[in-house]
């Protein structure tokens, strides 16, 4: 593998945001020791997190823990355990990591020895989600073999672009989401033996929406040339918002600090990558075990300026007119899901999420290339990539580079192979700059 050099300039304000993830796992262990409720959750794009926090449940995310295990180099043990229990090896790497972990947890009667970050304590609740990915509830259903925690499925509609724009569509979509949330509240109250604190929920929901607004503003700043925030910083601090890793009011302050730092860098003309030659959009999940590889690319002047649609906050919309916090939760999450749909429809495009957003990203962030990371074990992060590649070339004359790998299993990623393709890809990016100019595109 190529020598690792730290070329990417990291944001100072990223570190406290990244640190919230550690605290999130520590809190869960503390809660477990104190006999307080702990939930294992699937990422649900704020569709259920606020309700859990308002009920004082410590939430941890086995998806995130998969990345932690991969980065700590212990995932292989859990993957092998999962295989030996009979699960097919092509299912999600995060899921295999977690199923293997849970199997060991059952065998050892507690947090498996050597589990990183203090481990994930036994959950009182499992909160799966039906968002985008079948794995997000099938994996938790499969956990029933190892634990007796009840499983709730948070549901979200997935209408197509034209179907979402029907006369009454939004009305019945939001009604469905709100009704589902009411049932979730009832489930929580029954399971936890206490009532929802509606005032607290109202406050958390407002804080969460504000947190995402500020985080969205930070990402808007990245449109400038040269870009001061590399994707590595995005990935490091996205869990703070995506998982509501800390108190959203306090997290908002940390994102505001980041906004100030980034604004200062822009004023001083500073970039995340010295001598930014190529601006790239990255999709979807990075190789968590090999993040240093992006320094090798940065050395060549490649700056990843936008990434991972699924993990970006929604474009801000004012929801203050909706007094019911459940309706604000529903509308905020649906805005995340369908925020690009209207534009996609106007542009005659399909795949309003996972697909079309990259067209806007590449155009607005003036990207030279699309760097795609297809994952052998993840349909969600992979099945649209060739489509996006094609649409970007058809609509915007922007070329793509595919680097195959996996989020957990480092044996599936070959960085040298990517570097071997880099020269040719740079030539393609330069070529298409000329093509775009000829076609009247402005970058």
């Amino acid at each position: 593998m190529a020598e690792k050099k730290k070329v990417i300039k990291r944001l100072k304000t990223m570190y406290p945001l990244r640190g919230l993830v550690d605290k999130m796992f520590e809190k869960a262990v503390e809660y477990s020791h104190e006999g307080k409720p702990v939930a294992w959750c699937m990422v649900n794009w704020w569709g259920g997190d606020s309700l859990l926090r308002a009920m004082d449940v410590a939430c941890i995310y086995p998806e995130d823990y998969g990345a932690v295990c991969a980065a700590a180099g212990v995932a292989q043990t859990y993957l092998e355990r999962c295989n030996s229990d009979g699960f097919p090896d092509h299912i999600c790497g995060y899921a295999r990591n977690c199923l293997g972990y849970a199997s060991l947890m059952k065998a050892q009667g507690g947090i498996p020895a050597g589990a990183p970050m203090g481990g994930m304590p036994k959950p009182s609740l499992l909160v799966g989600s039906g968002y985008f990915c079948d794995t997000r509830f099938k994996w938790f259903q499969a956990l029933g073999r190892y634990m007796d925690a009840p499983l709730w499925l948070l549901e979200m509609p997935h209408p197509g672009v034209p179907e979402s724009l029907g006369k009454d569509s939004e009305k019945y979509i939001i009604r469905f989401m709100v009704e589902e949330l009411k049932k979730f509240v009832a489930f929580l109250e029954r399971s936890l033996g206490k009532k929802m604190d509606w005032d607290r929920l109202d406050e958390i929901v407002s804080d969460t929406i504000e947190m995402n607004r500020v985080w969205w503003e930070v990402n808007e700043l990245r449109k400038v040339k040269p870009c001061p925030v590399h994707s590595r910083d995005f990935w490091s601090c996205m869990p703070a918002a995506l998982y509501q890793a800390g108190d959203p009011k306090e997290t908002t302050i940390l994102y505001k600090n980041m906004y100030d730092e980034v604004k200062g860098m822009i004023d001083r003309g500073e970039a995340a990558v010295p001598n930014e030659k190529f601006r790239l959009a990255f999709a979807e999940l990075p190789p968590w075990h090999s993040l240093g590889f992006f320094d090798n690319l940065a050395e060549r002047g490649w700056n990843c300026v936008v990434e991972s649609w699924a993990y970006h906050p929604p474009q801000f919309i004012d929801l203050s007119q909706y007094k019911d916090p459940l309706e604000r939760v529903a509308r905020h999450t649906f805005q995340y899901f369908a925020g690009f749909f209207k534009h996609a429809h106007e542009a005659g495009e399909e795949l309003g999420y996972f697909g079309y957003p990259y067209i806007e990203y590449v155009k607005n962030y003036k990207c030279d290339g699309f760097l795609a990371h297809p994952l052998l074990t993840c349909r969600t992060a992979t099945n649209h990539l060739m489509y996006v590649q094609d649409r970007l070339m058809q609509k915007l004359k922007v070329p793509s580079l595919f680097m195959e790998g996996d989020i957990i299993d480092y044996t599936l990623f070959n960085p040298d192979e990517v570097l071997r393709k880099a020269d040719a890809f740079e030539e393609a990016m330069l070529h298409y700059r000329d093509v775009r100019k000829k076609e009247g595109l402005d970058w």
Partner: protein
Amino acid sequence: MSEHNLKGIAKAQKIYSDRSQRVKELKVAGAQILGYMCIYPVVEIISSFDLVPYRIFGSIEEPITKADNCLPTCVCPFLRSALDLGLKGKYDFLDGVVMAHPCEVAEKLAHIWRTYMDPVYSFYIDTPHATREAAIEYHKESLKDFQKSLEVFLGKGASSEKLKKTIEDYNEQRALVRELYDLKKPDPPLISGVETIEVLESLMSIPVKEGNELIRDVIEEIKERRGGPAKGARVLIWGSIIDSIAVVKLIEDLGANVVMDDTCVGSRFFFPDVETTGDPLDKLARRYLVDLKCPRTFIESGIEAGKKDYAEDLALRFGYLGDYVKQWNIKGVVLYALRFCDTHAYEVVSVKDYLSSLGIPSIYLEHDYSATSLSPLKTRVQAFLETLGY
């Protein structure tokens, strides 16, 4: 004998061997054909507008070439194959398509299909994973939108009476299919697993009333014929889509009888009826969302008790398999999943656990949906049948 004079099994085999021939004839005569993917697009609504529903399948015989530019190799090979056939013009006779959300890849495919195939008409029916009342209500609203889109496309209104009548036609077909499966209960069964697939795929390739006539003839023929399948290990096959006879033939050529199935070309699609009283859209929403037992739908357990009991959870999710085991006197189960089919892959260990609790042995086979990779499966099935004492 002219193919129009064929009846029963021979006719089904003819249709199976050239599935689109009949709908192409109907199209020449003025009918409009609507393709649908998987079991969630509501065929009753399609037929109630006098459209002919035609199920879209892939082909394990045809190498995937064109779809490689649209879908990566690490997603469901069946869906890639279906798109591949579409891109090669094999579905050009369709006047439109209806797709749903059976899994995340099929859901994406619905949108990708629209981009690359540019059908004159298309609709995507969102299908929740949950089965709570709000989800059923949402599904019903989606079905209303589907109806409205067909009204716009065809320039004519939906008829509740027509829909009710069409539901009755399909329920009649479902009753006939169940009757056909009853003929698989004796030992040996009166009809083979291969013949069953040929008949059922035929039903998904012709108008419902023609299908009902066909299956009535098949049942009559089967009851009277001599020289059906010989005795052998009684096997149930569970899993992902099996739209070719090849896999079942492989098992039956080894001396077993596939007397029952739980796949979306077999009992999973045909067994549940639609209730005929009340609002038809409401009943359709419930039938498709709740009654179809596909792993893509979430069945909750332990919610009221606050604690999940694994054995109870398995019984709730797979109890119907236990009934099949008893009624069809099953000796072993083949779990068959396509590589990269997540919804089934996650289920494999649980289904095995459930079957073990019943004392029923099982084997898991993973297939890449190509005819050339069947041989290794044959060796494994042979070994499995030996463990069953055959």
